[in-house]
């Protein structure tokens, strides 16, 4: 593979480095590292590149932003607010918007990148979940991912509280209302966070150091760990021809993947610049400075906080007073429970699944969502739960737009939040089985060829041909989900020790329901009405009932 000699400047630089740190060995192993290809593998990259844009634009913003709550009289170039008393933070945010060239662009790009960052993480997490890419050996990276998502929400919350405009203050007030509702420690947390009574004069500078130093530092460290683990463990791949659990098929890191990743970064950056230029976001100058006495109707948080807003709106007015103490369930439950269910559920899922299936083997082939119907149904159920809460976070807008009663959106929501996930589970499960059946039909009977044949009996049938090799290989990537049986391996009918108690019995039951092969690909062919009659052996017919 001689391709000429390395140009001198590169050769001398690289041998300088190699002489000192032995980089050659690393490069030898890694330059041609193979990366598998699938569109869904790009979703996480959106989040990664958005994070880089956040660091770049955020650094620019820190050069001009003044994170203090001291009062000043605004004297910048935005006429409508001239002479208005406001915090220095808000004044400097206005200064960035109107008196710094490119300041508005950077502010808007920063906000858009934040939205894209969280959205990218969410769809990436869904991809990993639905394809089972979190399975052994990738559970650690999955946990890092859950941590990243949680931190990103916190980073967003501390970020949009900084400009100290009326909208950001409303978010802060709700944060305070939630914090102070916590039993035992609520008032302590609140008074320590705000340095006294709400709103005080400390919270912006405290959130600032969290937002620009502590949380992004942890994010950066975790993202690095996330990347290193992905690199070491190699990416999962979709099932397909020539792809096994023991190989990786795709393009080499150098030069193809490197260039593609570079292009994708530019695309993400460009898309954020496009949004930052043409799609106005968070026009703080329209909201005015924060005062706890005012609010504008239709105040909405950033999209990723919408589900918390929705759950707060949905909750009935429950409050318990016992022995002189107050337990504001109408705040505690909606603020903690949905978030708890989603995040804890995400974090524990790989381990629960392992417990249920007893599967301790490594998995490097991504599962198609249909091939693990219970997992897919659980996932869609959770998405529905989240989605309903998220929609209800905007129930005032929905009521206004569709001219329906605001109160009824809440009543309907209170029912939907329980019924919706259940229905979603059932429907998804049936859909998965249906899709598995359709795969089995394609494998068992081939695909329609468009050729109509007339049988000697006078009957017409359509000739079926075997599916395309690549498609067939993709479908044949399906493997049965492992099941732990309630009986021991020697078949004497006595369950092994761990499976005898009620928990063991439950585990066996769950395992039986969760695992196994629901619709075998090469199973018995469904009742065939029209036998294949054809030119060759491969000729098969398919009749769908």
């Amino acid at each position, binding site marked *: *593979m001689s*391709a000429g000699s390395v140009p001198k400047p590169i050769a001398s630089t690289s041998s300088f480095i190699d002489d000192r740190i032995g980089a050659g060995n690393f490069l030898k192993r890694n330059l041609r590292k193979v990366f598998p290809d699938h569109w869904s593998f790009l979703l996480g990259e959106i989040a990664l590149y958005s994070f880089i844009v956040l660091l770049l634009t955020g650094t620019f913003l820190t050069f001009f932003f003044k994170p203090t709550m001291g009062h000043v009289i605004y004297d910048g170039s935005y006429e409508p607010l001239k002479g208005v008393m406001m915090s220095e933070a808000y004044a400097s945010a206005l200064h960035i918007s109107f008196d710094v*060239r490119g300041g508005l662009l950077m502010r808007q790009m920063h906000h858009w990148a934040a939205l894209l960052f969280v959205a990218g993480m969410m769809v990436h997490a869904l991809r990993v979940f639905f394809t089972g890419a979190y399975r052994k050996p990738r559970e650690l990276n999955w946990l890092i991912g859950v941590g990243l998502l949680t931190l990103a929400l916190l980073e967003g919350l501390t970020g949009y509280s900084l400009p100290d405009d009326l909208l950001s203050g409303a978010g802060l007030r709700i944060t*305070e209302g939630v914090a102070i*509702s916590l039993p035992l420690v609520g008032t302590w947390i609140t008074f320590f966070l705000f340095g006294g009574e709400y709103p005080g004069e400390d919270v912006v500078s405290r959130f600032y150091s969290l937002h620009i130093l502590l949380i992004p530092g942890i994010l950066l460290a975790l993202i690095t760990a996330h990347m290193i683990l992905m690199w070491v463990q190699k990416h999962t791949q979709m099932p397909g021809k020539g792809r096994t659990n023991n190989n990786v098929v795709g393009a080499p890191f150098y030069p*193809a993947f490197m260039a593609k990743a570079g292009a994708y970064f530019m695309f993400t950056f460009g898309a954020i610049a496009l949004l930052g230029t043409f799609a106005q976001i968070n026009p703080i100058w329209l909201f005015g400075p924060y005062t706890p006495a005012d609010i504008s109707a239709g105040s909405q948080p950033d999209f990723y906080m919408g589900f918390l807003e929705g759950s707060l*709106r949905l909750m009935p007015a429950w409050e318990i007073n016992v022995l002189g103490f107050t337990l504001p369930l*109408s705040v505690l439950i909606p603020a903690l429970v949905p978030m708890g269910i989603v995040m804890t559920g995400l974090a524990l899922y790989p381990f629960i699944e392992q417990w249920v299936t007893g599967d301790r083997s490594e998995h490097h082939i991504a599962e198609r969502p249909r091939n693990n119907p219970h997992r897919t149904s659980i996932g869609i159920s959770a998405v529905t739960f989240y989605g309903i809460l998220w929609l209800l976070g905007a129930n005032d807008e929905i009521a206004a737009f569709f001219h329906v009663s605001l109160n009824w959106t809440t009543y309907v929501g209170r029912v939907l939040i329980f019924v919706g996930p259940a229905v979603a589970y059932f429907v998804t499960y049936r859909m998965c089985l249906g899709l598995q059946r359709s795969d089995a039909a394609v494998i068992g009977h081939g695909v329609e060829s468009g050729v109509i044949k007339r049988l000697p009996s006078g009957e017409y049938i359509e000739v079926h041909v075997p599916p395309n090799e690549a498609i067939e290989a993709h479908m044949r990537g399906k493997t049965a989900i492992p099941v732990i049986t309630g009986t021991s391996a020697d078949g004497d009918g006595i369950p092994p020790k761990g499976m005898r108690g009620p928990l063991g019995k439950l585990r066996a039951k769950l395992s039986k329901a969760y695992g196994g092969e629901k619709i075998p690909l090469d199973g018995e062919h469904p009742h065939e009405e029209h036998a294949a009659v054809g030119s060759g052996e491969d000729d098969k017919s398919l009749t769908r009932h």
Partner: protein
Amino acid sequence: MTDSNHDIEQPDGRVPKRVIGTPSPAADTALLGTGEQHAGDLDVPGVTPQNEATAKKGEKFAALCFTIALIAGIGFIVSYVAFQVGDIEKTKVSNLALGGALTVALLALAAGIVVWVRMIMPKYNLVQERHPMASDGQAREYVAETFLQGAAESGITKRPLLRRTLLLAAAPLGLAPLVLLRDLGPSYADFPKKLRHTVWGEKTKDGKHRKLVVEGTGAPIRAADFNSPGGILSVVPEGYEHDLNALAKATLILIKFRPEEIKSGTNLNWTHDGIVAYSKICTHVGCPAALYEQTTHHILCPCHQSTFDAADGAKVIFGPAARPLPQLPIAVDNEGYLVATADFAVPPGPSFWERGDAEAEVRENGGHA
């Protein structure tokens, strides 16, 4: 349907033992510079070179994209100098020019690289083996042995005095950062007491009741002038118009009713001539309950839609708030201005752990705190 972008030249199923496409050790010095002129040398399974015509076309197209990016990049720098900011219109133009140029530059660069990858670089279908993540048994054994040996050598296992004093020594240092956080909070610790009182309970410097003033203008309110039924005002305490901490608890909504509209839930002793003052701070999580519907007398909090009946002591009729908005006792002073005669009987704003059922206490005490 299919996820494979390229066809695979290997036979199905089996794992190829050779790592195809990785450079041979001999090529170590030639990792770079796989130029077009050597396309013929790329006779490696899984690497399908582009045909020259496509590559030529790709080169031209990519070059066009890069040129556009260059021009747009220069445009960005020029825009920075050419367009100043300073008012809404100017900022708008500057933002459009800078953002537009940046967008074009980045997207053109991205497009150019994609063309490069797709039309000039070969099609790849390389296969690499995976190895189990776990290290082999020998390595594990070695590590375990070394670990035990090291622990023994260090003496930590058989010298308990060393171990225990070390642990003890670490404990206070671990706590030190937590101690340091104490001054994040205020010097006092009777937080609930703070939350129970607002500035309405404080007399003014000259010992009079505190006036209600209109939010924004700061004008005191003459009861006789606030006389149209259905009228509503956002009200703040005199002397604290810009004190956000005070406003976060003491802001009011003032509503004028016809006497016959007021229902039993409202404490008539605390009203003046059909004028009722409620805390504006929602009892749910503290947003200002700023919306008022005149015909139904409903006060609505825009955050989570808690709805209160203003005619009936602001009791909750919908939404997540669990308690009515506290009513403030008001009267007129000798000049006819509205004043607060006392503080709220119960703490305004969101619930907190130490709050207790303040409303029940007030009822037991016959309407007084």
